[in-house]
């Protein structure tokens, strides 16, 4: 099998697992974990295309992945801060129980 296709299949599987977790879990933190898995699968695609692409010395895919890691770190910090703040107001992290916008 083509090595690039193997990496792309693994990334697709990780993305699907993350999506299933984000869509089916009740706990807001578990939903964030699913989103992190999806971001990592996308990074794996970027690195795999950088490695097997025609011009790896241009570093495009590598830079994309590095910036994506930095943005994902910011996303995780703000997301978990929001979860903690919501837990302080609503005393739950159950997404099905959060059904009003008023604090």
């Amino acid at each position, binding site marked *: *099998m*083509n*090595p*690039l*296709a193997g*990496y*792309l*299949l*693994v990334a*697709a*599987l*990780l*993305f*699907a*697992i*993350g*999506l*299933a*977790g984000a*869509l*089916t*879990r*009740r*706990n807001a*933190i*578990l939903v*964030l974990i699913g989103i*992190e*898995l999806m971001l*990592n699968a996308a*990074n*794996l695609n970027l*690195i*795999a295309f*950088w*490695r*097997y*692409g025609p011009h*790896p*010395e241009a*570093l495009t895919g*590598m*830079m994309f992945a*590095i910036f994506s890691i*930095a*943005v*994902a*770190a910011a*996303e*995780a*910090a*703000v997301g*978990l*801060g*929001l979860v*903690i*703040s919501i*837990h302080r107001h609503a005393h739950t992290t159950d*997404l*099905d129980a959060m059904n009003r916008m008023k604090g």
Partner: protein
Amino acid sequence: MNFAFYLISGLAVAGALAAVLLKNTVHCALALTVAFAGIALLFLKLGAQFAGFAQILVYIGAVAILVVFAILLTRGSETPKDGVYSKFPLTGLAIAAAVFAVLGWAVLNSASVLPGAGNSSAVAPAVTVMDIGNALMSRYVLPLEIVALLLTAALIGAVIVAMHEKEEAK
């Protein structure tokens, strides 16, 4: 395609599955760390040393710790009485399976035209950390500054969002 690739991807996929399926939230966070480590190993196997070690530092070192902190601060480790899955788990599973089917179909159908089949890609590209640093300081300096601004804003924003609001209460 060799044994190491299958072993590492099996580790990453098993960690991801455990992170999504386990009932105890703390166990989920630990399994997530395993999945992150597997993905970092895949990066290293692809010859992207800098991205692999950045993955280990950022995800295993920071994000996993943040997740554990959030779980313990929200008492999320207690398994809820009415199950860990939302009201319509089958819909979510169906959507995820459909997404994987489409992605896998697209990859397998285009496997013959993807780059990387030839002998020329057998050797990993020789990219040192110095090359990455030079690129970050020359061609990618504007995105680097924007990311620095974004990280500062996210840091301040996360602290403000999660801060106690005692003054507001009175």
